[in-house]
Each structure stands twice: as C-alpha cells, then as structure tokens.
C-alpha cells in the first residue's frame, strides 16, 4: 500500500511537471529549425551525449567509482555498429554480404548488415560485459586507484582501435578495426515501419535520440530509487558500513559498471550511424574527460544535472566554440582559433566547478549534504583541515 502511495507521490512531484514541460519543448523544438541545419546537428549530438553522461553519472555519481576510461564503452558501442552495420567486413558471406533482418538496398551490399535494433541489443551486451570485465580488477581497489585502472583500460581499448588494422581476424582476410582510416560509410538507421534515415534530414535522428534519452532517463530514475540504487549510494558513502549492512559489494559494483557502460554503448552505436564513421581518433582520453566534465558541471549523482551539463557542454563544444566565438582571439589580435583551446576550456570548467561549486549546477540533495556537512565522506584524508569531517562521521 505504501509503495503505491509512494509512487503516486512521486508522480505528482513538481519535478515531473517540469520534466514534462521540457519534454514538450524538446518535441516541438526541431520544427522551428530547418531539418538540415547545423543547430539540428548539434542538438542530435547533444542528446547522444546526454545518454552517455547519464551512464557515466551512474558509475561516478551514484556508485562513487571514478571512471576515467568511459571512452572505452563509446568505442565498443561504435565498433559494434561498425562491425555489424557497414561494408567493413567485405569478405563476409563469401563477398556477397550478410544481411540480418534488413530490407532495402543495404541487404545486397557486401559486408555485414544487421537490423539497427539488433545492433543496439548487441552493443548493450558487448558493453555490459566489457564494463564488468573492466570493473573486475578494480574491486579490491578504492578511490583514485580505480580512476587509474579504468583510465589504463580506456587507453588500451583506444590503442587497439588505432592499431587494429594490423590485427587480422583468424581465418579471414579481415582486420579488427580500420584504424585511423575509419570505418565509413556506416549504415543509416532503419527502423520498422519507417523509411531509411537520410544524412540531410535530421529530424528523424533527433526523435530517435530523444526517445533514447527518455528511455535512459526512465531507467535511471527507476534504478536510483530501487534497492540496487540505494546500495550504490550506501557503497559510495561508506563502503565498510554498506558491506556490514549486507550490501553485496562485488555484485553491486559490477552492476554499476555494467549498466553505466550499456548506456555508453547504445549512444556509441547511435553516434556511429549518425556521424557515418567509426574512426579510432574519436576514442581518446580527452573524450572521457569531456563526458566527465558534463557530469561534474551538472552535479555528481544528479540526474537532471547530467542532462543539463551534457546539453550545455555539447552546445559549447559543437556550436559556441566553433561557430560563434571561434574568431574572437584573432579579433583581439591573438594568433589562434578558439577550437584549439576547447579542452583547456573544459579543464578550466572542471577546476572552477570543483573549487567554487562542487555540488554542480543542479545539485543532488544528499550529495549537497555530504559536501556541506561532511557526512558520508568516508575516504577524506582530513589533512590540515578542521575536525568537523572526522567528528561528523563518528
């Protein structure tokens, strides 16, 4: 009975009204723009990054496991799309091509061409397993060591992507990746009952991305309030206490990695199709930081914060820096373009946010309490600081 009442309570929450207003705005937004406009391009990418930021927020924000190698999941999702939805494996099916539940011209081309929905499922499976595998070695570690191990994995995946053109697949003439050349073109999304998407008509892409974000959001909210979500938060606040209250640490941590990774994988598969290329140069450490900056900007553990942070940084990165402010330095007599500095700008944002407003733009309630009152910060060093931190824990 109380569960039902809780649920109703949550539904009537003012946040839900705001959410519906924003969703409505997001639904009508593309009709104010030309369907091939650059702003549409930015909007689609922004939505894809929202899904990734939500995934990373789950790992870093909810579960408190700083993951600096999130790019690995983007890469694996994108390569799943590239492998299963392009002409890359030219020898597949004896040069005739392999088509799995695909109709239309793609079915007759060489290479492997699978249905987009199947590819998404495959991307989810691949990235979930990868997330858990990467999580496995970090189980015994805490804090910043986790960050370094995940970073190392991210870099290893990136290296394999770059040098994958030298790795032959046994028994075939194919290589693992196309390296810096990139796998291109990639199949455009084709959904049941809809036409094949077109490169210059961006509205369908936008709505698919929006649907993806809404789904990811629903999963996120459900997870946060579930038993698992509470276990994540408990683990983040004090691992030892969580274990002694019966939270299974291994399972809880691995599920955080796996779920967070799956969001990145879905978004990666979508982006591969949208950008029409899977290029090894996309998968660098700086991308992990780009996504991390979104989560930090919005506020760690805050779902709406991640959404806002992702949209803000995507707009800054894809629209404001290259299109609006790019020539500002040259106008004031400096000899460089602003695009060269984009990652310096994100680095600056990280520092400023952490020092001045560590709770982010839209802070999560519990997180704010942790930061201001010092509760739950089980692993503070307490070097040279006031005693409040230690005492509040006791």
């Amino acid at each position: 009975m109380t569960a039902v009442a809780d649920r109703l309570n949550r539904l009537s929450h003012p946040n839900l009204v705001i959410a519906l207003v924003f969703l409505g705005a997001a639904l009508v937004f593309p009709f104010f723009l030309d369907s091939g406009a650059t702003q549409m391009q930015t909007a689609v990418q922004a939505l894809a990054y929202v899904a990734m930021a939500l995934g990373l927020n789950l790992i870093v924000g909810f579960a408190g496991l700083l993951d600096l190698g999130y790019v690995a999941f983007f890469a694996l999702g994108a390569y799943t799309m590239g492998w299963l939805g392009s002409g890359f494996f030219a020898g597949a099916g004896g040069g005739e091509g392999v088509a799995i539940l695909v109709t239309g011209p793609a079915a007759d081309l060489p290479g492997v061409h699978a249905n987009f929905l199947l590819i998404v499922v495959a991307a989810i499976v691949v990235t979930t397993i990868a997330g858990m595998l990467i999580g496995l070695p970090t189980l015994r570690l805490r804090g910043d060591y986790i960050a370094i191990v995940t970073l190392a994995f991210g870099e290893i995946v990136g290296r394999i992507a770059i040098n994958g053109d030298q790795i032959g697949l046994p028994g075939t003439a194919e290589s693992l990746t196309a390296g810096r050349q990139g796998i291109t073109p990639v199949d455009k999304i084709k959904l049941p009952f809809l036409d094949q998407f077109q490169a210059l008509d961006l509205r369908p892409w936008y709505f698919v991305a929006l649907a993806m974000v809404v789904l990811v959001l629903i999963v996120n909210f459900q997870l946060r309030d579930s038993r698992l979500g509470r276990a994540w938060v408990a683990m983040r606040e004090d691992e030892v206490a969580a274990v002694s209250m019966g939270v299974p640490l291994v399972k809880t941590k691995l599920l955080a990695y796996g779920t967070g990774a799956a969001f990145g994988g879905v978004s990666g598969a979508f982006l591969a199709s949208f950008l029409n290329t899977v290029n090894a140069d996309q998968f660098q450490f700086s991308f992990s930081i780009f996504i991390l900056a979104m989560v930090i900007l919005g506020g760690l553990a805050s779902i709406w914060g991640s959404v806002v942070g992702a949209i803000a940084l995507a707009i800054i990165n894809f629209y404001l820096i290259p299109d609006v402010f790019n020539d500002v330095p040259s106008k004031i007599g400096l000899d460089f373009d602003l695009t060269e500095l984009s990652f310096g700008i994100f680095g600056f944002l990280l520092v400023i946010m952490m020092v001045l407003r560590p709770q982010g733009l839209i802070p999560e309630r519990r997180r704010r309490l942790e930061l201001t009152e010092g509760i739950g910060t089980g692993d503070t060093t307490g070097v040279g600081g006031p005693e409040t931190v230690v005492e509040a824990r006791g």
Partner: protein
Amino acid sequence: MEAHTETAPAPARPAVLGAVGKFLSEYGLILALLVLPVAYGIQDLRTEGDLTRLADNLKDGLSNGAIWALVALGYTLVYGIIELINFAHGDVFMLGSFVAVGLWGTLGLTLVTGPLGLVLGLAVTLLVCMLASGTLNVMIERVAYRPLRDAPKLAPLITAVGFSFILQNVGILWLGGSPEGVSDLIRSQQTLVTIGGVNVTRGDVLSVGVTIPLVILLTAFISKSRLGKAMRATAQDPEAARLMGINVDTTISLTFLIGGIMAGAAGLIYALYQTTVWFFQGFTAGLIAFTAAVMGGIGNLKGAVIGGLIIGCIQQISDNRIGGEWTPAVVFAYLVLIMVFRPQGLVGEETREAG
C-alpha cells in the same frame, strides 16, 4: 555472489594451491616483468648468437628510465604526503621541456656554440627549468588542491585532471599542436665508449649523469635535513605533525616544489635526449612515470627510481621489438597487472588505499 564480498572469509584451499598462490603474489610481478627480456634474449641467442641487441635495448631503457624516474619521484612524493595522484605532474614536466627549448633560443645556444658556452648555458637552463616547474607545481597546489583538502577525495583528482588539460593547452599555444624538432645541442647520438658491442652515447651519459646526483641529493635532503624530517612526519600523520609544531601547509608546498624541480630537470634531459618536444609528451610521460611509481610502491623514493628504470627498459624493448605504436598499451597492461596483483608495489609497504 555474496560469498565473494571483501569481508567474507577466504574459502579453505588445499595447502599446495595456497603455496602456489603465495608464491605468485610474492614473485608474480617480478616474473611478469622478466617475460619480455627473457623471451627476446632467447630469441636473440637463437637468431644472432649473442645478446648485443638486448643489451642495447636495456642500455637505452636505463637512460630513458632515468627520465621517468625523475618524473616518478614527483608522483611518489606528492602521493606520500597527501594521497593525491597529481595528474597534472606529467604536464609540469612537459612545460619544463618547453621552458628549456625557449631558453636555448634566448641564450643563443645553437649547434655551433663552443663547449664552454654550451656547458654554462645548459647549466643555467637546468636551473631555470627546475625553478619554473617547481614554482608551477606549487602554484597548482595552491589554486587547485589546497581549497579541496577537506572535500571528498575524488574532488582534487578531478581538478588535477582539469589542470592537466589547461597545461596541455598552454603547450599548444606555446609551440603548436604537433611535435617540434629541436636542435640536437649535445649531439646525443654520438658514441662515447663501446662496451661489449653496446654504444654508450652522450645522451645516455647526460641522462644518467644528471639523474644520479639529483636522486642522491634528494634522498639526503629527505633523510637528513629538518625540512625533510618535517615532510616525513607530515606524510606519516598530518595531525600529529601539526601538533608538533610543523607547518603542514608549508611542508606540502615544499613537497610540490621538490616534485616540480625533479620534473623540470627531467624536462630538460628529455628535450636534449629525444630532440623533439610536443604538448602531448606530458600525458604519456605522466602515465608511464605513474606506472613506475606504483610499480616501486607509491610513496617510496627508492621504489620510484627502480620502477622508473624497469619501466624504461620495458618501454624500450616494446618500442624496438613490438612496435612503438603498441608501447602505451604494453605499459598500461603492466599498470593494470600491478594494480591488481601487487598494489603495494615491488618494494613498498601497503598503502591505506591499495590495501
């Protein structure tokens, strides 16, 4: 699943398996480290009949490793005292290289400068690089880490990553976004002596010749001087150190200064030895040096030097045999192995975090 939580008692194992496990956790890392040199040593013996090529790799590895050792000292000092991975340290090293290259231009050091002028000029450059990197490191601590000393531990790590990107962009603005060749002032490839078929070049002598005195000085400073004692006390227990009248803030600043000084020296050697500099060198060097510090046991000075030399050899063997494009992956694979199987490092004690 539940049975595998950290607190659950380890299931009883047969004695033999237990002994094997103990042996692996004790010597497994050393065995893993020996795999590459031994495998290629055997291959050399079979194909060429001697070990000259391997010896040459190891020699290059040691002189490269000396540079990583200097950078690793900065990581290990800072981690020892405030348990923070100073992610921006590699980029402080990179800017040290840039300062060196810039200063050669100002001082007018070129390939035709006489030996006396060169030695004097490089000595001045070394001092300036050390000071510049040291000051930069102290400033980063002041701006990005000190305000967050009471925040959750991930906060300063995130600002460290942020600062790393800021410094890389400073590098891009300074010398552009691609590797920049610099004049080979010391003719680093010129052979000085040949020992058993291995050519020892001027670059090797420089790199080892600068590193050894610096490490000796540093060890003496930390173990003998009052300030060094204050650093060790703060590392052991900051609160108790404060109660004993040690200014903890100053001591932490001093630690960053020393770490930066080492990185600055490494920056100059790197520029002279590799004769190319670019903004991204700090990121790679930082991760390699961090691996070295962890390998030796983070917080342990001796360990950082040993780790640096070992990682230098691994890197060189990988560059020469597997291919330079795979080297980062090889180094990172070792990093993961160490973290998983021996987080306390080769010579270090268990740290609070890695236990």
